[in-house]
């Protein structure tokens, strides 16, 4: 029974968007501030001590990272295609696109691990062998920013694997798209952050 004080009123519409989506956007707002803090401190440190940073390509491998950027962009396409497939109730499309997104995310992580290994074992920086997190401001900021981003990708891949498993059980469809859309928002944000990091850390 409706409460006497609210009887006859239309329900409040709020943002007119389902709760999980609003929740994810609010979470992403906090993530924007988190990465803005990291990037801001990087800018302060870099321009405050410009001589302890290498020129693009001197230490970091731009070629393989550009490929990795391409892989993450491709994973954003497959993610949004999975959402479109869910809206169209295309079960095969949902399964295939979610699986592709999961694998592309895992491939990104694999290449990042390979990149870290190469840097630690074989890179030359300021006369010493190996570019590690202990290699001054440059090493510390590089591994902090790319490491935190990689951790976000790892979380995304775990969630994607779970969503893919559910897709094979027929969980998603025209009447159940919210999970894929919300996960997609997170995944696209991770891609967006990498777009900024790739430019600032590797190319400038």
């Amino acid at each position: 029974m409706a409460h006497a004080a609210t009887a006859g009123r239309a329900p409040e519409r709020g943002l007119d968007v389902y709760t999980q989506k609003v929740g994810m956007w609010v979470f992403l707002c906090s993530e924007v501030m988190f990465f803005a803090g990291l990037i801001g401190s990087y800018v302060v440190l870099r321009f405050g001590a410009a001589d302890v940073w290498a020129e693009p390509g001197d230490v970091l491998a731009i070629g393989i990272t550009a490929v990795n950027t391409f892989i993450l962009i491709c994973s954003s396409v497959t993610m949004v295609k999975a959402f479109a497939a869910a809206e169209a109730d295309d079960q095969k499309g949902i399964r295939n696109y979610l699986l592709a997104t999961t694998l592309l995310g895992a491939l990104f992580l694999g290449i990042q691990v390979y990149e870290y290994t190469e840097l630690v074992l074989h890179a030359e920086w300021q006369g010493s062998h190996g570019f590690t997190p202990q290699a001054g401001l440059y090493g510390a900021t590089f591994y902090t920013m790319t490491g935190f981003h990689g951790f976000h990708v790892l979380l995304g891949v775990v969630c994607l694997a779970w969503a893919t498993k559910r897709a094979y059980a027929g969980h998603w469809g025209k009447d159940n798209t919210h999970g894929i859309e919300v996960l997609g928002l997170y995944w696209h944000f991770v891609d967006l952050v990498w777009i900024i990091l790739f430019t600032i850390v590797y190319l400038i």
Partner: protein
Amino acid sequence: MSEAGSHAADGGDGHAHPQPKYMLIWLYLLILTLAEVGVAFLAIPKWMIVTSLLVMAVWKALLVALYYMHLKFEPNRLRMVALAPLPAVAIMILVIMMEYV
């Protein structure tokens, strides 16, 4: 850019989401990424390289946010939520820039 395709789907919250041409956006992103790598090694003044790279990075980020995250098609109320941290980021950038003034 008029990207909206012919078919629209309901996102489950009562809003019709026009479906952009996702592959076209992907192509833009790919081209911009290749252009960024090319610009980084051009023999032009450093400030021009930095400016070009930042413009292209923001352009790519906007493409992802507007089309893949569907912000272009969301109600203004949700856009306000999504844009909420940007004033704080702008203040932070201003404060950082004051370090070098």
